[in-house]
């Protein structure tokens, strides 16, 4: 980067770059670009010291990794919350503390809820969602998703979003972000509830096979279907 030419970027060039990116992107990237554009366009235009290579690299990194930093469009006091990263790590406590801090900022709220909903794989084609169901049915997500749902309930996410919905009831964008949030969380809860019982039964079977083989040999193995939840 140190050898990069110190280019000043005219507005037309920025426009061309964005136009090319948008034309050559799929829908997910397009959403990411639009999101990023809203956040950073003002910064790009003002930051005349930025060079073209740096800009292109940051765009490429952004498209590969997603919106790592998602900030307000208000350039002066933009709260930079790494929402995507926090949600990916399921660090809901940290995310919640950030979002509570910017509770009065509808843009931060909308983006948080949108990123959250997107990370729970709710596609835009609602309400019939084979893609969503396929993705969420992945069993390795079952336990993680259960923990995530429980964390959200314990942290008071439902109450928080309901409060936001009440405070911004005249703001259609906020309400439009709150409803899919509620739906996606309960959808995950619903699917998790279907999977967790058989999952627990399998775990119970794994844990008890040792006892059968070593202590009570030749005893027929009978395991209650709800054994996973009886302990």
């Amino acid at each position, binding site marked *: 980067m140190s050898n990069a030419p110190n280019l000043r970027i005219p507005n037309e060039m920025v426009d061309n770059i964005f136009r090319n990116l948008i034309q050559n992107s799929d829908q997910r990237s397009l959403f990411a670009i639009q999101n990023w554009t809203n956040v950073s366009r003002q910064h790009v235009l003002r930051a005349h010291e930025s060079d073209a290579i740096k800009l292109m690299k940051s765009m490429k990194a952004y498209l590969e990794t997603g919106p790592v930093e998602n900030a307000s469009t208000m350039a002066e006091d933009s709260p930079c919350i790494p929402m995507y990263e926090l949600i990916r790590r399921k660090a809901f406590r940290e995310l919640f503390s950030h979002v509570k801090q910017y509770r009065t900022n509808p843009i931060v709220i909308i983006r948080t809820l949108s990123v959250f909903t997107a990370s729970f794989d709710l596609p835009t084609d609602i*309400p019939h*969602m084979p893609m969503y169901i396929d993705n969420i049915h992945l*069993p390795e997500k079952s336990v993680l998703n259960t923990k995530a749902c429980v964390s959200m309930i314990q942290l008071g996410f439902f109450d928080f979003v309901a*409060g936001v919905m009440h405070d911004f009831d005249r703001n259609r964008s906020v309400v439009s972000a709150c409803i*899919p949030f509620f739906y996606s969380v*309960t959808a995950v809860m619903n699917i998790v509830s279907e999977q*967790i019982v058989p*999952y627990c039964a399998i775990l119970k079977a794994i844990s008890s096979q040792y006892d059968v*083989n070593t202590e009570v040999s030749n005893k027929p193995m009978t395991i209650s279907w709800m054994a996973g*939840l009886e302990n």
Partner: protein
Amino acid sequence: MDGWIRKLIPPEKQPMFTQELLHAAKTDVNRRVRPRTPEYEGTDFASNITFHEEDTVIAAKAILSEASTSIRQLFYMTRSDLEQAIRNVILWLKQSIFNNDINDRDHHILALAFLSRLCAFDKNGYKQIMLDHGIFEVLMMGIKINNRRASLYQSTLSENMQIVTKTQLAFYTLMTTHLKVPDVEPTVFQFLKQDAIHIVMEILLLSIGHNETIFSFFRQGEAYRPDFCQTRIPGLEKAPYKARCDGVTPTYNIPELAIVVACQLCFGNYPTSERNDTSHILLHNYNIIKRIKFPADPSLDLMSVLKTAALAFGDTDPELCMLYPIKSMDTQSFEMRAASRETVQYMIRKIANYYSA
């Protein structure tokens, strides 16, 4: 191991993804035993599990304990956890239900699905909260508005028709969820206060009286469905139940749902041929509905609607008549359809007595 698990779990309780769940469980256990270190990088954790090691048992028990704790917390949420969310969603539905914006109606569907799903977690607690905040008023108003929209879109097949059908399905799904209680009469009484029987009768009129309406039995093939596979009754198409059970779409179409709801409003949830002691609320509904007239075609009566519904519920496909067919229907759908068929047949017997008298 896989066969052993299959024997362990009753067929009706086997999840769709037993293999995947088993793989996930084995992987989780083995990861707990062998933490993520460079020496195990790239290991297939699921295939390397050893069942006879003490570590494996301890790990499985630890995961089981964590999972059980989580699931208990998830299933037994307190009233305060979700009351505000339920109240605000219902309030928003009340405010926006008259809005014609298609985007809003998509959100109506999601909001109604959210409320329906909550009922599955806490059988009666959340239903009571919804009742306290006026969900029945919202339901009846929503169904009424959609009936009017349906009569407007009689001759056009458009995006509007699809969205009206989807929204109506969402309203009816929540309504039937509320009717699934052991003692249905208090709920029926609440619906009666919102003039439910007349609103349901509007759909019965639309279901058979006008073949042009989108809620007609004979137009359901053109209405929204996730998948159209086979036609069994002329003019009436059905998708496999599994395709309908996507978590949002019920296992019924709108006229079928309306018939079942109408029967429930007249006889409760468990009609039997022996039952004669119908309460005055249910009897009131029954007396209203049995005199329904079809102005568009005076030769039709309630019996025509019921017979068409019975035909729709009577599955002729052998796969659909079997219990637990893996590809076509899940257990819950099978039971729901069977119960609905019995309800409709009971209503047919009752109405036949009325017409013959």
